[in-house]
C-alpha cells in the first residue's frame, strides 16, 4: 500500500496551461508564449484502422470538444464514401450539434468566463468560480444551468449513445432516428433553451454591460487584438455551425477568401516554432509573418468572436436582434477579445432557436435516416464550427478503407498564436520596468480564458485540475518570477 500524500500542484504543471513571458532589458514585456500539453502519436495510432472507427476514436482525443470531433469525423466519412446524409439524418445531426453548442457555451460562461464578470475580475480567486457565481445569481439560476445542461446532454445521449464521448457517426446518415413520441419533450427542451438563452443575455447586459468598469475593460486596449478572422457561413453569409463555406475577413472587415472546406490546404498554412508543440496556423497566401497583429499580420482568429465578425448576421430572428445590438456596442469587426463571451451567448440563442425549428420539423421523425448509395473515394475532409472555432478532419484510406493518413486542424491551433499575443498585451499593462503589478495573473488568465482553449486534451489524471503557471524571464532568459494557480 502506498503512502498517503497531499499533492503539490507544482509537480504536474509542465505543459499544462504554461505561459512564458520574456522581458526586454528595460524590464518591459517583449514576448509571451502560450503552451499546451503535447499529445503524441495520433496518426500512427489511427493508421490501419477502418475509417468507420474514426468517429468513435476521435471524441476521446479531446476532453473538451468530443461532439465536434465526432461530427467532423462523420462528415469526413460522408466524403470518403461519396454520400450525403438524408434530409432527416441531417436534421438529427444538427439537433445533436445544437444541443452540444448550448451545453458547451453555458458551461463556459457560467463556470469559466462568467466568474470574471459576474463575480468580478478583482474578486478573490476563492470566490471567482461557479460557487461564487451561484452566490451572486442565486441557487435557482444555477439549477436552471444544470437542468439545461442535463436536458441537452440527454439529447446527445439519445442520438449518439454517450454525451461526453459520442459513439454514433455513420456515413450518409445517423445511427438512430427520432421517434414521434420523443418530439414533444424535445420541443419542450428547445423552448426552455430559448428562454434560458434570453435570460443569460439579459444577465450579461445587467452584470457586465451595465457596469462601466467592466465595459471599459472589454473595450480597452489590453484586450484588443487586430487580426484576420475565419469562420463557416451559410449561403446567406449567416452563421452556421454544421456546414457551409469558409470565409475569411481582414482586420478591416473586408472579405479576402471564400472557399470550400475541402480546399483548406490552399488557404491554411501550418508553421512550426521551437517554443511550442502546436503547429501554428496562418493564412498561406500571406505567408508566415510571425507573432504580430495589425494589417501586416497573417494570423487569424476563430471561434465566437470570429464568427460574429465574419458572418453578416445570425440565422435566427432573436439571435439576429442580439447580434445587431452587440454590433452597435462593439462595432464590426470587433477586435475586443473579451467580447468572445458576449458572442458565445448569442450563439447559444441561435442554437436554441434552430433546435426549436428542427424539433417542429415534420421530417425529423421520418424513418429515412440512412443513404447507402456509396461511391467510395478514399479521401475525406470533414469540417464543422466547433464551439471554439473551425475544426477540420482530413483522412486518406487505402482501397480497403483502412486509414493511411490523418491530419487534424483544431480550434486551439488556429488561436494559439493570437492567444500568445493577447496574453502579451494584457501582461504589458501590468509589467513595467521589471515590476509585476498585483493582478497580472488575473488579467493574463482573462485574456486566454476568453478563447476557452482546449488544454490537456482528454487527460484526466489526478488531481483533476489544469493549473496555470506563468514564468517571467529577464532579457537573458533566466526565470525571475513564477506565478501559478491551481493549488
Amino acid at each position, binding site marked *: 500500500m502506498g503512502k498517503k500524500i497531499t499533492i503539490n500542484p507544482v509537480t504536474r504543471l509542465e*505543459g499544462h496551461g504554461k505561459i512564458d513571458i520574456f522581458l526586454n532589458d528595460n524590464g518591459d514585456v517583449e514576448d509571451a508564449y502560450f503552451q499546451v*500539453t503535447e499529445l*503524441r*502519436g495520433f496518426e500512427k495510432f489511427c493508421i490501419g484502422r477502418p475509417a468507420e472507427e474514426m468517429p468513435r476514436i476521435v471524441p476521446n482525443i479531446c476532453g473538451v470538444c468530443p461532439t465536434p470531433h465526432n461530427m467532423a469525423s462523420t462528415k469526413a466519412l460522408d466524403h470518403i464514401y461519396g454520400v450525403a446524409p438524408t434530409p432527416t439524418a441531417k436534421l438529427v445531426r444538427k439537433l445533436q450539434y445544437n444541443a452540444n453548442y448550448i451545453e458547451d457555451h453555458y*458551461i463556459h460562461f457560467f463556470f469559466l468566463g462568467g466568474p470574471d464578470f459576474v463575480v468580478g475580475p478583482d474578486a478573490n480567486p476563492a470566490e471567482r468560480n461557479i460557487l461564487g457565481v451561484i452566490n451572486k445569481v442565486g441557487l435557482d439560476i444555477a439549477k436552471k444551468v444544470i437542468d439545461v445542461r*442535463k436536458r441537452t446532454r*440527454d439529447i446527445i445521449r439519445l442520438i449518439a449513445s454517450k454525451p*461526453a464521448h459520442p459513439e454514433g457517426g455513420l456515413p450518409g446518415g445517423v445511427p438512430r432516428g427520432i421517434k414521434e413520441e420523443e418530439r414533444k419533450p424535445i420541443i419542450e427542451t428547445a423552448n426552455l433553451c430559448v428562454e434560458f438563452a434570453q435570460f443569460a443575455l439579459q444577465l450579461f447586459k445587467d452584470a457586465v454591460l451595465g457596469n462601466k468598469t467592466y465595459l471599459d475593460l472589454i473595450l480597452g486596449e489590453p484586450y484588443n487584438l487586430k487580426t484576420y478572422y475565419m469562420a463557416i457561413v451559410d449561403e446567406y453569409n449567416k452563421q452556421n455551425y454544421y456546414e457551409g463555406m469558409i470565409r475569411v475577413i481582414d482586420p478591416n472587415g473586408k472579405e479576402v477568401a471564400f472557399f470550400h472546406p475541402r480546399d483548406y490546404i490552399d488557404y491554411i498554412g501550418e508553421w512550426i516554432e521551437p517554443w511550442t508543440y502546436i503547429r501554428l496556423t496562418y493564412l498561406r497566401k500571406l505567408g508566415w509573418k510571425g507573432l504580430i497583429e495589425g494589417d501586416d499580420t497573417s494570423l487569424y482568429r476563430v471561434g465566437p468572436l470570429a464568427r460574429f465578425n465574419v458572418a453578416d448576421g445570425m440565422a435566427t430572428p432573436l439571435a439576429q436582434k442580439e447580434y445587431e445590438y452587440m454590433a452597435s456596442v462593439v462595432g464590426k469587426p470587433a477586435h475586443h477579445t473579451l467580447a468572445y463571451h458576449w458572442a458565445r451567448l448569442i450563439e447559444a440563442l441561435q442554437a436554441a432557436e434552430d433546435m426549436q425549428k428542427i424539433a417542429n420539423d415534420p421530417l425529423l421523425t421520418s424513418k429515412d435516416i440512412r443513404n447507402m448509395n456509396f461511391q467510395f473515394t478514399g479521401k475525406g475532409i470533414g469540417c464543422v464550427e466547433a464551439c471554439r472555432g473551425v475544426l477540420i478532419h482530413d483522412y486518406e484510406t487505402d482501397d480497403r478503407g483502412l486509414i493511411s493518413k490523418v491530419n487534424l486542424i483544431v480550434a486551439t491551433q488556429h488561436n494559439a498564436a493570437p492567444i500568445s499575443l493577447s496574453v502579451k498585451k494584457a501582461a504589458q499593462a501590468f509589467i513595467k520596468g521589471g515590476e509585476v503589478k498585483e493582478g497580472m495573473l488575473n488579467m493574463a488568465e482573462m485574456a486566454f480564458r476568453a478563447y476557452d482553449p482546449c488544454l490537456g486534451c482528454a487527460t484526466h489524471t489526478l488531481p483533476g485540475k489544469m493549473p496555470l503557471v506563468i514564468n517571467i524571464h529577464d532579457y537573458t532568459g533566466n526565470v525571475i518570477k513564477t506565478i501559478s494557480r*491551481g493549488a
Partner: protein
Amino acid sequence: MKNFIKKHHLTPRPLEPYKLSDKTQTNRMDNRTLIIGLGNTILSDDGAGILVAREIKNRCQGLPNLDVVEASLGGIGLLDLMAGYERVIIVDSIKTDESNPGEIYRLSVEDLGDTSSYPCGPHFLDVRTAIELGKTLGYTMPETIDIFAISIKDNTTFSETLTPEVEKSIPELVTVIIEDCGLTK
C-alpha cells in the same frame, strides 16, 4: 487492425426514449456503492483507472448494491454519476514528481486541494469543487468518497498499451480495493 474494438462497444445498448430530466439526484440510494474507473484507454497509462474498474467488475459480479462505470470525465460529469450513491470509489491515474510509476495511492477528497484554486477550464472542474457544487445544488452526495490511484509514467502518447510498471500494478490495486472496501460476497 489492432485490438481496439472492445466487447463492450459491440454490445447493443437499449436506447431509452428521450424524456425530460427527473430529479433523482436528490434521492438517496441506501447502501449502494459506485465504482468509477476514470481515464482514457487510448492514452497509454491514462487508462489505468478504467482497467482496474473493469477487473473489479469481473471479480465482483453478482455483488448486490454495487455499480461499476467507466468514464472519461471531469468534475461536473462526475457529479452526474455520483449523486444519489451512499458511497463512491474513484479509481484514477496520478502523476507527481515524488512518485514512481506503478505505486499505488489512497487519497481523500481533501488531498486534492481546496476549492479556492481556479482551474484553467470548466471542463476540468476538480472533484472537490464538483462535490461542493452538488451539495450547494441540493443533490444527495455520497457520504463516503474513496480515491485510489496508480502513479503513471506516460499519459501523452496515443496507445492502448500501458507501460510495464503500471500494468504490473493493476492486479494489486484491484485486490487492494476489493479488500479495503469490503467488496466481497
